[in-house]
């Protein structure tokens, strides 16, 4: 008996030394889950107009474009193609509102409108969550539990700032800039609206905003809430349309500030286009975040963090942890546990409450991600995907990991903006820092270790605007967000973000 025990023990520890995890039950597709669709009515209208001067108005061109559901490729609604005349009308409405109402209104009263908007959005949370999921393809679990409540929280937080601006910049007084132009991306359509609009209004500015072409619906739905809240006409104007409409907006001479969230490439185009003007700018651009796992990290938690870091919102997140840097001694263990975890990640109908990974936003984005998968394979990295049944319709991609990636690989350098993780290893703290910082980007980073002093060292050394230690992809209205280097400048959220919407006098 004793012999048997001594025989067994070394065998088990040898297996762990090989980096293999303990055996665990993997249910995978052993049992079918019953569908659990979210059935709340998104209350979509067949057609949405532009929101200018507090009214929904048809575009001057009379043209409309379709917004489709990326999960089934069906048309959801048609939206107005805003053009130069519409943009001009929006600025006129915004300037008028700024001069006659909003710019003069006491902060106390301005704040009340923001509180109202927050409350009205909370009232209609489920409706907005379903609309967001249908327009964007992200899982209802995320829109319901993250996007919509966080959007409401941003309005609520900034509502409280409106009459306390004197406390935001000691020694100086905050003055509004005027009318600000805001152009937002498709990955967090509603949340980006709130990140942009709430601080702008709290600081006393008026807004002309354009949602992304792929995901315009909640922007015009939010305009319904502005109407219900009694927000004075022209304070916020929503212009839908293609990218070129955004260009018109930012080029407009009445724009005192430009706030843009999107790719670094487009950010550079915008910066060039406004050179020669005195427009203020906030740029929230791309990223290629390193998520760094040390050998003393709580590995199971780290694996959850890696999954949340890169597969949250199908990896279509500027701060996604798209580069996993893992301590060499635990690399095999981490990768093996990660694969097990990915085998049970549910990819499919975004409206299903059990879905973890939904649809990619558009065919173009899916193609772009697929191109990177081909590049990764061609450059010699090893690709792995869990078993996956592609739905007949819609733009789906299974979570994908690449091992054997080096710093020179394009999949380790360029922002893929999809559910694709590049895994690299390191041996020393210095090597981890060097690899993490060796990028033109600097938006976010993750660190997993049990050692407090190492967390603080990493947090100090990493050139990134947000560092998540033993967590990843956490957001809050009070917490400033934004990048170093080519990830942009300015912050959104917190006191720092608020100050970017004012001049100090």
């Amino acid at each position: 008996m004793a012999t048997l025990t001594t025989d067994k023990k070394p065998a088990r520890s040898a297996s762990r030394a090989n980096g293999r995890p303990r055996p665990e039950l993997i249910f995978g597709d052993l049992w079918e889950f019953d569908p659990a669709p979210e059935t709340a009515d998104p209350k979509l209208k067949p057609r949405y107009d532009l929101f200018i001067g507090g009214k929904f108005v048809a575009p001057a061109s009379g043209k409309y474009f379709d917004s489709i559901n990326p999960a089934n490729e069906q048309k959801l609604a048609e939206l107005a193609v805003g053009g130069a005349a519409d943009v001009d009308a929006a600025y006129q409405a915004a300037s008028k509102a700024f001069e006659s109402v909003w710019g003069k209104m006491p902060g106390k009263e301005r704040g009340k409108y923001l509180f109202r908007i927050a409350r009205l959005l909370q009232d209609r949370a489920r409706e907005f969550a379903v609309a967001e999921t249908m327009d964007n393809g992200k899982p209802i679990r995320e829109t319901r539990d993250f996007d919509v409540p966080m959007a409401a929280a941003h309005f609520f937080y900034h509502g409280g700032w409106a009459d306390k601006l004197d406390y935001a910049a000691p020694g100086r007084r905050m003055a509004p800039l005027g009318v600000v132009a805001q152009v937002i991306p498709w990955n967090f359509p509603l949340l980006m609206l709130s990140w942009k609009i709430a601080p702008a209004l709290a600081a006393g500015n008026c807004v002309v905003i354009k949602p992304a072409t792929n995901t315009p619906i909640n922007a015009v739905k939010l305009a319904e809430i502005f109407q219900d809240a009694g927000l004075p006409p022209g304070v916020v104007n929503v212009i839908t349309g293609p990218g070129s409409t955004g260009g018109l907006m930012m080029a407009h001479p009445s724009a005192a500030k430009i706030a843009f969230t999107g790719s670094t490439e487009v950010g550079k185009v915008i910066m060039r286009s406004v050179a020669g003007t005195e427009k203020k700018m906030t740029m929230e651009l791309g990223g290629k975040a390193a998520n760094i796992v040390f050998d003393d990290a709580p590995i199971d938690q780290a694996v959850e963090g890696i999954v949340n870091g890169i597969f949250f919102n199908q990896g279509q997140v500027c701060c996604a942890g798209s580069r996993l840097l893992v301590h060499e001694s635990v690399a095999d263990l981490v990768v093996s546990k990660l694969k097990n975890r990915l085998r049970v990640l549910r990819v499919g109908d975004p409206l299903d409450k059990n879905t973890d990974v939904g649809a990619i936003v558009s065919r173009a984005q899916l193609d772009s991600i697929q191109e990177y998968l081909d590049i990764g394979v061609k450059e010699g990295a090893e690709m792995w995907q869990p078993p996956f049944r592609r739905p007949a319709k819609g733009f789906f991609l299974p979570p994908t990991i690449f091992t054997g990636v080096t710093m020179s690989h394009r999949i380790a350098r360029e922002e893929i903006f999809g559910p694709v993780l590049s895994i690299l290893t390191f041996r020393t703290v210095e090597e981890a820092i060097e690899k993490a910082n060796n990028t033109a980007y600097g938006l976010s980073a993750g660190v997993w270790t049990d050692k407090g002093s190492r967390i603080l060292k990493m947090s100090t050394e990493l050139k990134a605007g947000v560092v998540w230690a033993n967590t990843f992809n956490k957001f809050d209205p009070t917490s400033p967000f934004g990048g170093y280097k080519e990830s942009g400048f300015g912050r959104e959220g917190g006191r720092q973000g608020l100050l970017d919407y004012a001049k100090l006098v």
Partner: protein
Amino acid sequence: MSRLPITKTPKPYVGGAFIRSESGRVFPVKDAAGNFFANIPQCTRKDLRNAVEAAAKAGPGWAKRTAYNRGQILYRLGEMLEARRAEMIDTLALFGATKSAAAKDVDVSTDRLIYYAGWSDKYEQVLGNVNPVAAPYFNFTVTEPMGVVGVLAPDSPALLGLVSLVAPVIVSGNTVVAHVSEKTPYPAILFGEMLATSDLPGGVVNLLSGFRKELLPTFATHTHLRAISATASADERKTLRLGAAESIKRVKFTDSDIDWFAATAQSPYAIRDTLEFKTTWHPIGA
């Protein structure tokens, strides 16, 4: 027979040394009376790139100094200027300032250095904060220097313009490559000698004399310059912004007609202009 005085060869302060331009080029500068004063190095784009390299090398060490230490070094720079106050006033007067204007330029410059020296271990407490996030995380926002910052100084006030742009940049741990006044470069070169004796590590402030037109495009496009703080004409602003777009460089313009002598010309928000904000999250738990 009267003694012939020794004239100084003006050399700008770069990388902790006094240099000539790598090109060997110089341009003559006259005093206010129109008399030849000296030949001033006409620094080139190559000199600028070398200066950026020196600034980049000095950066991490300077940023790692304690805030207290940086404050003391800035204070000592003020001491150096005060000690050579008479010489600096005479120099400014030589190039056309009235004695009283020159004295004001030097005194306000000195006071400005002391002002920013005092901010070194305080701006963090004013600009950063802990954030009360709605989840069990400890979340705090701290500032960090951006790195190497390009400064384009105004012609006037010859000393205070440069000091007002440089001091708030370096106090937080940034390093600077500055183009000094083309019209009146010598006061800045003299200031370089005070930088050299102030305990400021070599490479933290690098001063280039020369023609703005020649150097400006490189200031705009050099990707290792993470920010620009400048006084500039409308055309120059456009060039700087266009170049900055290539590497998402931060650009801060100060109007050259501001009242440089006023208390409003200095604030922790000038320090903020070349800071990055970094927010760290950590779970609260066992």
